[in-house]
């Protein structure tokens, strides 16, 4: 059976530097998978290459077995893979609701403005219904719908970014640094929400995270990236016991406990 997302020998190059050097990964429909590793390991570059923001220098990205390497971001969204970008990147001057609606509008683009707009206007009722579903999932967004997204808290902006991505009705949500700059309590709430979303709606998760503890709690499998290469992969439970992972990512180095 073909996986929802397959990445094979992917390379991403910025000038002479190889940010991602031959990484492969696989994600089945409905799975929760994490990419962990230190700053600059190539996690975000990998995600951006999958989502079409950067063109890979080599390797292949497949969605449902179809080669989508180097496709435009919009094409990836229409394939059912939406990204929640690092630093949220909400449309700050626009109201929260407009942010969400643009998530639905964006999916209708095939490079052509007029036909996308016509499709959007024709499908307004369906978009409204989807908006209602998002408000039911994230009631906070309904309260904030008139507020410019830039004037909401970090956690609320993360909800806006997630809601915006969900408006495209994705089967896979790729989240770049969920916890970055957010209070631990807020992160726990968002993690719980994502778990529910995954379990009840079957939306798969690909989580890029520096906080390995969070990644292991939320995801069943993980890939460990270092200097652009995948150095480890496996089930979260196993990786959590791995000596290398413990010392490097879980603060195990500070609590060396001889038996």
């Amino acid at each position, binding site marked *: 059976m073909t996986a929802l997302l397959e990445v094979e020998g992917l390379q991403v190059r910025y000038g002479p530097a190889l940010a991602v050097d031959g990484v492969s990964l696989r994600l089945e429909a409905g799975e929760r998978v994490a990419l962990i590793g230190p700053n600059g390991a190539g996690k975000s570059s990998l995600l951006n290459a999958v*989502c079409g923001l950067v063109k890979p220098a080599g390797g292949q990205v497949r969605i449902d077995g179809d080669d989508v390497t180097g496709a435009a971001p919009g094409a990836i969204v229409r394939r059912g893979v*939406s990204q929640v970008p690092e630093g949220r990147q909400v449309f700050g001057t*626009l109201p929260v609701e407009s942010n969400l609606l*643009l998530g639905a509008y964006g999916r209708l683009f095939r490079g052509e403005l007029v036909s996308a707009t016509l499709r959007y206007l024709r499908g307004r009722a369906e978009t409204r219904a989807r908006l209602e579903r998002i408000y039911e999932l994230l009631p906070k967004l309904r309260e904030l719908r008139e507020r410019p997204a*830039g004037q909401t808290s970090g956690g609320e902006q993360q909800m806006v970014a997630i809601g915006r991505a969900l408006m495209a009705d994705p089967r896979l949500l790729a989240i770049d640094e969920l916890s970055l700059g957010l209070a631990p309590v807020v992160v726990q709430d968002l993690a719980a929400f994502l778990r529910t979303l995954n379990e009840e709606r079957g939306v798969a998760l690909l989580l890029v995270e520096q906080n390995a503890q969070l990644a292991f709690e939320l995801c069943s499998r993980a890939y460990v990236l270092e200097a652009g290469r995948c150095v480890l992969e496996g089930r979260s439970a196993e990786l959590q016991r791995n000596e290398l992972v413990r010392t490097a990512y879980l603060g195990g180095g500070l609590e060396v406990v001889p038996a």
Partner: protein
Amino acid sequence: MTNFLQLVVVGLSSGFAYALVGIGMVLIHRTTGIVNFAQGAFAVMGGLVTATLVDDVPTFLAGLLAVLLVAAVGGAMGFVALGRRGRTTLLASLIITLGLALLTSAVHLLVFTDVPRTYPRISATSWDVGGVTVDPQYVLIACVSLASALLLTFVLRRTIVGNALVACSDSRRAAELVGLSVRSLGVLSFAVSAALGALAGLLIIPLIPLTYDSDVSIAVNGFAAAAFGGLDSIRGALAGGLVLGIAENLVIGYIDPQYQLAIGLVIMLMIISWRSRHEVAT
């Protein structure tokens, strides 16, 4: 005092035209990051085409056709200036607009020759308001400019396409990620800006005849107006255009008409140097 008021009133009329050109620059800059130097060419084209068409069709229709034509040309220019995704830098795009401005100017010279063009004002009689002469054309310029600015603001705030244009300026990266075609939206911003520029040109040409090479001074003044609001604010460009128009006319009236263009340049330089210092400081 009457003389002063007269100069202000005349200044306001050209000020509204600068404001329209400036608002167009703001729209393109916000959506694409490009500073469009061909903005003056849109105004000249709008004016010259209208002045030529009025010989054959009613003025309103001539103006409408000119606006549509210039919008199409502007969209095509945007398509060229935006270049290839991820390959064309902002600086390259800016140079391309400069080249397109020169090219347009040359085409204008070929098609319309170097004779200044104009067409009759909306009304031959003007009003006397407390000793100040108010030409109905001034009022027309003010009304059309304000209406365009309001309409544009409404579209940007309330329609999905307008929101998408704003989204590009808020976060181009996120706009791409949700699937919006940043490129088509950029072309749209060029077309709309061109239409605004054309309106400015066709409204001002009955008062100030234009030639193929008028685009430089219009572009400079439009840019100065736009720079007033930091190239990112429609209201700022509107205010900037009016301030500039009045200042320019006071200089013409009290000092020397020769310095007309210099005013725009000086104000532009002052704003830019003040802003750059301000931004470094914060």
